[in-house]
């Protein structure tokens, strides 16, 4: 079967500013895979070192892959990077340009690298645009067996209709470190607690819009009910209403022989807070798929922010075997002009959404006119609540805001001892 892809024609703006020289432009195709069709809602231009490049072979793969990695962190659940778009005077798909081939396979590897990011398909799309004479060629490249076949990429003048589902999830997870995990790094502890959360999420049922539906019913059915009831009365605006998902969790344990006893633990890691999840789906998306997308969104968001947090710490901060509070960046939802699904950005404590504007413009290859539209829904924690009596250190990622209570305490004691020694000797 030929792969079917639909995009609203506002993504065409990608090609308008394509350079006329021979170097070409590479971008990422962002969208959602449906049962019989994929929906593309954005083409994001990948950064390139413009000056020295002259031919298509000079495209820096690393820049594109890094771009993909950053973008994939920002996508809502259910959205994926489906492939790459190339604007080039020549058709790069017949035969498939070796550069494109390598880009696609490495892209797939990059997306697959972090399993919390969800499922990169093994079939990547390549959309080739030839400026003269304005021609689009789309093919599907199968990474596993190297086959290439034509795909049907259509543009529509209508805006794609997206249905929005919201969920605010409370995370309150406690992970006890095994005796052997004493020597493990913070990154490993975080990985362990994320795995625990993922297991938990697998046992979560989402109830959407307080309605009981079977798993194979699609999102459209949530809006149909009221029509038949009151005859002709139909509220059109109702269709745009975002639906809320209720998460119900069923605890489930595999019994293991190591359980049910007193054991030694080398400490604990607690993750606590609220995570805002928001996904966008097409009308035929089923309840089961929505539930998968929400789970993917939550895990991806948690993993991304933890990864960003760990990346921002210094060597010493990571290896310190001390009690402390880590404050990973929070999720902020941002709107791109004329695009309905929103992207996520992650802000470190103290940062505001405006600071991120330039980096976003670079990532998405757009210029924001006027204010950046964003929703900062998760909020920063009031750290004073966590410090009441316990001696803990807060490790924030901005180096300026580091409170080392225990260190200060220790310093004070040393000072007092020194004073005493000084006084009595």
């Amino acid at each position, binding site marked *: 079967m030929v792969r079917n892809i639909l995009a609203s024609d506002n993504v065409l703006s990608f090609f308008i500013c394509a350079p006329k020289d021979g170097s070409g432009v590479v971008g990422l195709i962002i969208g959602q895979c449906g049962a019989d069709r994929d929906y593309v809602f954005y083409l994001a231009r990948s950064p390139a070192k413009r000056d020295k490049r002259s031919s298509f072979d000079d495209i820096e793969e690393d820049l594109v892959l890094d771009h993909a990695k950053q973008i994939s962190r920002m996508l809502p659940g259910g959205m994926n990077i489906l492939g790459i778009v190339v604007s080039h005077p020549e058709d790069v798909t017949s035969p498939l340009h070796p550069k494109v081939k390598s880009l696609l396979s490495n892209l797939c590897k990059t997306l697959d690298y972090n399993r919390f990011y969800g499922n990169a398909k093994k079939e990547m799309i390549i959309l080739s645009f030839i400026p003269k004479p304005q021609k689009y060629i789309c093919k599907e490249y199968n990474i596993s067996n190297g086959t290439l076949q034509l795909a049907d990429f259509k543009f529509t003048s209508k805006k794609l209709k997206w249905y929005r589902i919201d969920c*605010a*999830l*409370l*995370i*309150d997870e406690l992970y006890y*470190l095994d005796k052997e995990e*004493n020597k493990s790094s*913070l990154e490993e*502890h*975080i990985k362990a*607690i994320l795995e625990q959360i993922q297991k938990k999420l697998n046992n979560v*049922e989402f*109830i959407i819009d*307080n*309605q*009981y539906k079977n798993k194979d019913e699609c999102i459209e059915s949530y809006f149909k009910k009221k029509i038949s009831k009151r005859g002709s009365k139909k509220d059109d605006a109702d269709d745009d209403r975002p639906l*809320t998902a*209720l*998460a*119900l*969790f*069923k*605890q489930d*344990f595999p*019994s293991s022989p190591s*359980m*049910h*006893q*007193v*054991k*030694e*633990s080398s*400490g*604990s*890691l*607690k*993750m*606590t*807070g*609220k*995570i805002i999840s928001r996904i966008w789906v097409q009308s035929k998306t089923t309840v089961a798929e929505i539930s998968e997308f929400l789970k993917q969104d939550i895990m991806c968001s*948690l993993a991304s*922010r*933890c990864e960003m947090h760990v990346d921002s710490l210094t060597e010493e901060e990571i290896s310190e*075997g*001390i*009690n*402390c*509070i*880590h*404050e*990973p*960046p*929070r*999720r902020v939802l941002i709107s791109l002009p004329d695009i309905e699904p929103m992207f996520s950005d992650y802000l470190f404590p103290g940062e505001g959404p405006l600071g991120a504007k330039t980096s976003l413009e670079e990532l998405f290859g757009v210029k924001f006119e006027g204010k950046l539209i964003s929703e900062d829904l*998760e*909020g920063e*924690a009031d750290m004073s609540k*966590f410090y009441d009596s316990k001696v*803990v250190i807060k490790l924030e990622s901005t180096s300026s805001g580091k409170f080392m209570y225990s260190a200060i305490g220790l310093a004070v004691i040393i000072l007092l001892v020194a004073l005493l020694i000084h006084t009595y000797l």
Partner: protein
Amino acid sequence: MDNKIKISETVIQRLTYADRPCTGRLYGISEENNVVILGLQQNVPNDKTQGISNVFPTPIQYCATFAVDIINTHSKVDGKLHVFCNQDTKKLMVFDKKSKESSFVIVSDGDIFSKYWILQLKGSIPLICEASKTTIQEMFQDLRSHVSSESTAFKITDLCTYVLHSNVICGAEEGNITIKQLFESLSEDQKEPNRKKKEKVTSATVLLVEFLQKMSVGGTEASANHAPLCILDKRIKKIINTYCQIDTLAMISSDAHLSNVYRTLQEALLRYLSQYEEKLLACFKENTSLKIDPYHFYPSECGHFLTLLYPAAKSDEDLVTERLSLHQQCMLNENVPMFRRANKFINNKNKRNGPLINPHIGVKVIDNGGNTYSVRGNYEYYHYCQNGMDDSGWGCAYRSLQTLASWFKLQGYVDREVPTFHEIQKCLVDIKDKPSSFIGSKQWIGSTEVNFVLDTLLGITCKILYVSSGEEMSQKGPELVDHFKNQGSPIMIGGGVLAHTILGVDYNPETGNIYFLILDPHYTGSEDLHTIQSKGWCGWKPVSFWKKDSYYNMCLPQVPRGI
């Protein structure tokens, strides 16, 4: 309006059978002006074990006192009903809250089954905390307040319904129907049309409920209003690492609405947690495994469910004192085990692999004007061609033996699986009853061999009854009545021809008429209760069932005394 007081048959039976004066509490369900008394607890002097108020399904609670004596001198407790049973005349008197004598109605098991449905709440909760008594208690305190909060939710799987704190999410069109109506509307499509459901209610209707926790919050709720933080605490400590397996029961009126279910289930959970905490702390103190398993029991003499928690580290043998106390408190026969693990309630409606349990329940009754006595407790129906083995024509006595062995297993008398054909044959070779070529052969066995095997493998002795012809079976009425009354085990009968299992007897001493409840091992079909009952593979048979020209031997397994 007058109080309507209903008392279950089994409570009355136990009160009137009391052989010495006693006092105690009665437990039941109170709804507005109605009280249904379902259970009792006798005051046992010097009993140090825990009371039993926690073991009843919610919302059964202490609602009356009772006294059995020759004269009614016992003072009553304020605000409670009082029931007096005259030990000589066996007459029962009920006094209402104002000490005025009032009328009451006796209700049967069947009445209770159709009025109340059982919700079986299942789930689990992690129990991980620092290993100290106080932290464990704190953890349970937190759990209780968590359960009492709005974040608790339930899913009634059989009704396609989620019950939340403030609303009910249901697949049915209109929410305003009773549980029974909803259940019937959902099961209508699946039921085969030729089977009418106008059957007598013979067992409890159990609906499965899952315990769920709400993880999401409304956008505006203030709790944890910040992005996730990670708190790392690298202090070495001892922790307990276990979980609480939730399995508790609640009774709900079948004409109640779904919106009434939440509180009852929440209450059931809280009750269960208290019961669990107590057991867990005891295990913690004794430094044994923290695994605790819930068991539901439905002794027919009780007429209600009891949920007991047994620590995995303790064997049935270790728990004998606890069980004895329970038998005494509930005024139950102290010669018959009712609360061993093997006695646990088995819901026959659940699809299970393996043989059917108690296929005689619900068979067509006969009108003999006599007294019916039948097998006590559960057994499994073994018959030809099970587990892919074609023993048609020679295996009937083996199968009957297996049915007998399953009864001993399910009563908790023996702790071994039902012997296989190979084990049976090997046993007979081992005791030198048969040559070694017997193993793997298709030779049939008779009641003597059944007797040997039961004795060797299960340590059970049998009484053998002999009749020289089928007609003579009609004279065995009193002996069989006596067996089912005092032993209650199924009987294997074999002889010149076929082997069968006798599950019960209906004997009219005045007319001498006798019927036998027969379980036929020659059935070769699948485990289909409907066929088994309607085609007479299990059913009441007259004396003519036995062949006139054949002799018969009966194995009457003798049951050990004790709990």
